């Protein structure tokens, strides 16, 4: 569609039929006519997500400040990452003084599910969708934004994602910055209490599915136990927190995948999305998010 627009614009330019200002107005009106509805719906669905992001990112900001980030760094870390588990894992590497290689591998493992969501999203775009739209939608393909975009029927309209991003992205970025600032100005006792907010969120994400699935329950328990083993056993405690996360995640997930493969033809991608949903958005299935 965009290609057609460009072609039209170029034609108009070539024939000199439209003056520059008129040409731009013409193109702008065309865009709105075609994508205004999707854009508006995106903004509408993005608002509750933005509010949740503000809170999650705020607690990540508290963690970021502990490892030495300032407010501006907190802002950019939040803006470019938009991932609760990923950011936390990254901040842990910074805190431990790990190498840049360790950082890269930790981030790859913590964010591995985005590879799956990104593949899945690619299926929903029209094959003609230009590269720039793929890059921009990918930029903020979080669990929640993936969830609401994939829940829409038919071919994905990037402008729907842009609408949601316009509100959700500032929520996440400003929350991260606010967390760093709050961490510096709030009393120590309050900061100490807020430090567990993130762990509370992690528990809220992993415990309900563990209640429903014995495999996930077993995995969570095995994760707790092996992680404690690494932390408390004299020889293993030399392994940094980041490396521990990589080793255990890869080993336990591979074991579970070999013993208990997920059966659904296309269930994996969307379910993986639920697992780290930073907030309780009524996720992929159902009309809840469309009606919100």
């Amino acid at each position, binding site marked *: 569609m965009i290609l057609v627009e460009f072609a039209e614009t170029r034609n108009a330019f070539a024939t000199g039929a439209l003056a520059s200002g008129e040409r731009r107005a013409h193109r702008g009106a065309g865009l709105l006519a075609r994508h205004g509805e999707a854009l508006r719906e995106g903004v509408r669905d993005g608002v509750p997500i933005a509010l949740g992001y503000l809170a999650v990112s705020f607690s990540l900001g508290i963690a970021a400040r502990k490892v030495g980030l300032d407010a501006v760094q907190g802002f950019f870390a939040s803006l470019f990452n938009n991932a609760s588990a990923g950011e936390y*894992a990254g901040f842990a590497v910074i805190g431990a003084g790990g190498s840049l290689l360790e950082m890269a591998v930790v981030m790859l493992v913590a964010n591995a599910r985005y590879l799956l969501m990104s593949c899945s999203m690619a299926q929903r775009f029209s094959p003609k969708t230009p590269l720039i739209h793929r890059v921009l939608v990918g930029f903020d393909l979080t669990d929640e934004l993936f969830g609401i975009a994939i829940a829409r029927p038919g071919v994905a309209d990037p402008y729907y994602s842009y609408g949601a991003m316009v509100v959700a992205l500032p929520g996440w970025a400003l929350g991260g910055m606010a967390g760093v600032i709050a961490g510096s100005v709030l009393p120590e006792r309050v900061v*100490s209490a807020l430090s567990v907010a993130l762990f509370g969120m992690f528990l*809220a994400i992993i415990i309900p599915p563990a209640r429903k699935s014995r495999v*996930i329950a077993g995995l969570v328990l095995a994760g707790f136990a092996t992680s404690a083993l690494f932390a408390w056993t004299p020889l293993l405690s030399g392994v940094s927190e980041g490396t521990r996360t990589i080793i255990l995640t890869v080993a336990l997930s591979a074991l579970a995948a070999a013993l208990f493969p997920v059966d659904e033809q296309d269930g994996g991608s969307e379910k993986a999305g639920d697992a780290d949903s930073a907030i309780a958005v009524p996720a992929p299935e159902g009309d809840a998010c469309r009606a919100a």
Partner: protein
Amino acid sequence: MRPSIVAYLAVMSAVTLGTRILPLTLIRRPITNRFLRSFLYYVPYVTLAVMTFPAILSATDSLLAGATALVVGIVAAWLGASLPQVAAGCCGVVFALELLLA
């Protein structure tokens, strides 16, 4: 030598954005391998579990407060409390306990 914060953040952001953008732009076919799909499905649960424990014990000023927050969080989530409720519950318990213990 310890890398600078900016270097850390650059690597962090580059990898995150790479995982989101590269498949969308390059791989335009679905992942069909059953093992790989299952592996990616399980990854987030294990990552979050490993990062939560035992780190939660040392996140606060007192070990007891951290341990109590863990128990409260698990029980609340098990009983169906929402994400903000679980998070607030954990914070509240730590705040109250540290106030009492101090």
